[in-house]
């Protein structure tokens, strides 16, 4: 395609119009003239989500001075777009509710979810690399302690249980035998009204704590490099949109800066399978990958992310949606691939649904686009629950046809039209020639299973988490399995195309048990990381809601405190 023929994407138009610093395609600012001495801080924190602001709280708790550099135009990172849940083992809410969460089975659960390829219940450390297992041990041992510490210093009170619509604590995502505490590990901040706070509230509280102690959150400030002396980090170079300046960090620099979900280049280089960006902030472009490489960091798990799904037409790196397909609404609904075949229990949580797109079978990524198919009853009963549009709405992302044949024809036409505008990283997809027959067969089988209440293929409707995400049984659904209802194929059928995405990647430099970023011979002095910019404590797994924010807060706080104590100025009466 020629340059002139290129039609700007929505994100490209947004970037051009918003004219913000650090948008794609804009190079770094010039280096400021060095007539002034660098600013002096004990700890520089990079990013302003839960990991970063917990790091600031940790550093502040030691008496250190802290500055926060946020690349984006608003504070909060991806946390601010989230539910604000932290997945914490043996937490105070569980203790108060009398829910036991013993150490060994909890570690076994974490190990099995995080490293399923290596997990061995009989082996020392459950078969994990010792350094990986040590991080899980630290997470179990210190998670509740850090939450208590954050409360004790009035940074944030993580004392609200994450509740489901049925007034039960939200369940974990896997019910393995090792999981003795399926409910209770998800906790949220206590909002001013006494209820549970979401991610925006979590950020508000942590930011208010930092601000009250003189910590400035500098928006539009992108950290572009590190200053090193004798192999240890002594400061950062930050681009404020007009010039690059040096900030000196006497204790250390803590990165909580997000992953690389919105760097098409890094996605292509590191992720396995077709991943079409993510629903996190567009500023998550993997700054620590280059910075960490130059500092000599050792990387791990670069293929990992927190997986989910998004509507194909909604994917755009600089025009992200506020919400991913967090839960899939509908009982008379199934999901098929381009062959017309189901590949997943559709009511599973976002992580499992996201992972199904990565399967390589039949010499192709056969699930790279999945089609959510539902009938008119489901459209009317679940209209308004994303991605099903409100009843009566004209919605471009929904393809409709009469009966299976009509839907297949309409869907084929839509996919042909999208051929030249697929998201970066997703190959064009066409329906198999037998798609219509196969879809008809899949629906007939689904309908029969719905009548019997038993999903013989994927056990839909057998896990607590499916019910938690689905919500109450539909009033007109008297089928044995409330998560299944036969589709009426005689009327209109609808389809929404879904692609595999990520909240954000969770891969980067490896960290030690105090959040120190590791080099080839041990921790790099003065360099720390937590959250989605570093190699996840949970490896390739997602044990339960809050698995993103929980480790970010715990290792962020530990890292900030370690960096604060490392400053020779802290406690010296400066």
């Amino acid at each position, binding site marked *: 395609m020629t340059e002139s023929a290129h039609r700007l994407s929505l994100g490209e138009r947004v970037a051009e119009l918003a004219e913000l610093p650090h948008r794609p395609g804009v190079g770094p600012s010039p280096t400021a003239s060095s007539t002034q001495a660098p600013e002096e801080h004990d700890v520089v924190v990079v990013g302003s989500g839960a990991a970063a602001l917990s790091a600031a709280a940790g550093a502040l708790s030691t008496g250190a001075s802290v500055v926060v550099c946020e690349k984006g135009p608003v504070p909060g990172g991806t946390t*601010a777009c989230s539910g604000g849940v932290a997945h914490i083992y043996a937490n105070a809410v569980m203790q108060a509710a009398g829910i036991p969460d013993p150490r060994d089975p909890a570690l076994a659960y974490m190990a099995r979810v995080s490293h399923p390829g290596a997990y061995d219940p009989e082996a020392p450390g459950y078969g994990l690399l010792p350094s990986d297992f040590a991080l899980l041990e630290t997470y179990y041992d210190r998670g509740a302690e850090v939450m208590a510490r954050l409360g004790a210093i009035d940074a944030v009170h993580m004392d609200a249980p994450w509740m489901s619509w049925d007034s039960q604590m939200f369940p974990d995502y896997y019910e393995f035998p090792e999981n003795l505490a399926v409910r209770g590990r998800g906790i949220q901040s206590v909002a001013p009204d006494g209820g549970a706070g979401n991610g925006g509230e979590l*950020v508000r509280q942590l930011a208010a704590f930092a601000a009250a102690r003189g910590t400035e959150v500098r928006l539009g400030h992108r950290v572009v490099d590190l200053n090193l002396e004798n192999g240890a980090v002594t400061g950062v170079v930050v681009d404020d949109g007009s010039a690059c300046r040096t900030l000196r960090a006497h204790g250390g620099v803590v990165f909580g800066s997000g992953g690389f979900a919105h760097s098409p280049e890094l996605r292509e280089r590191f992720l396995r399978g077709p991943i079409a960006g993510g629903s996190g902030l567009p500023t998550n472009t993997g700054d620590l990958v280059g910075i960490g490489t130059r500092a000599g960091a050792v990387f791990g798990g670069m293929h990992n992310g927190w997986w989910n799904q998004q509507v194909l*037409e909604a994917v755009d790196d600089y025009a*992200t*949606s506020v919400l991913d397909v967090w839960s899939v609404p509908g009982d008379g609904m199934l999901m098929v691939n381009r062959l017309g075949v189901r590949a997943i229990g559709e009511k599973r949580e976002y992580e499992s649904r996201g992972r199904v797109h990565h399967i390589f079978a039949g010499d192709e990524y056969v699930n790279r686009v999945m089609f959510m198919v539902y009938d008119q009853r489901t459209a009317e009963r679940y209209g308004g629950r994303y991605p099903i549009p409100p009843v009566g709405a004209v919605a471009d992302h929904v393809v409709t046809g009469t009966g299976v044949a009509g839907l297949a024809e309409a869907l084929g036409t839509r996919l042909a039209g999208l051929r030249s505008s697929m998201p970066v990283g997703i190959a064009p997809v066409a329906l198999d020639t037998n798609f219509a027959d196969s879809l008809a067969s899949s629906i007939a089988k689904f309908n029969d299973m719905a009548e019997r209440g038993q999903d013989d293929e994927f056990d839909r409707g057998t896990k607590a988490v499916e019910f938690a995400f689905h919500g109450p049984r539909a009033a007109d659904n008297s089928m044995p399995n409330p998560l299944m209802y036969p589709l009426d194929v005689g009327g209109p059928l609808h389809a929404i195309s879904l692609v595999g995405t990520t909240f954000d990647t969770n891969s980067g430099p490896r960290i030690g048990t105090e959040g120190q970023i590791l080099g080839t011979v041990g921790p790099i002095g003065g360099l720390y990381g937590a959250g989605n910019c570093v190699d996840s404590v949970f490896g390739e797994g997602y044990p339960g809601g809050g698995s993103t924010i929980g480790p970010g807060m715990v290792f962020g706080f530990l890292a900030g405190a370690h960096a604060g104590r490392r400053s020779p100025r802290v406690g010296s009466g400066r």
Partner: protein
Amino acid sequence: MKLAYRDFPSTASGVPAIVFHPEGPPSVDRPTHMAQSSGAVGRLVAPFGDYAFYPSGMEVGGICWYRAVPGSTSADPISLTKAVVQATDLVDDLGLDRPALVGWGQGAVVALGAALLRAGQVGSVICVDAIPAHLELLPPSALAGGNPPPVLLAATDPAGVQTVADQQERLGGHGIVASVWHWTAYDGDDERDKAVAERIGQWLTDV
């Protein structure tokens, strides 16, 4: 992704209108009703913004136009600009004859942004209960003005007189002249909606 929308055929003679809902529950019923009650709107199109968690928790189904920053009057200009671009695309796609853009809350900011960027295609714009500081987050090229359509800034909160004055001053700083109106009766939601509908009708008739 293109905005989903509901399309209401004309129930009365009047100008075509595109109505932008406030943030909150996933419904366009109330703003649509207010616009239709004005008696000055013909065909009405009501787009839906982005889906989000409800502000106070994790129940999915709330709708918004952009990300607000909790605990402050700020908002994310990237997501706001995205909504404005989607709104301009809707204006282009619908091809209505100089429609009025009418918005509430976040929808008011988006309506104003789209109207400023499509000044030649839009007949007028009415912004009800926009957060004043959010107006400053519109794309610079939108605020650069040019020849904006008639703008009415309206507020229904008890501090409405200050709210519209603040909005007017902020837009005036960019050379954008706007009329203002604020509700003063404060005697219930129904009365408020009725008063807003009347003002919309009067404004659309006048311009």
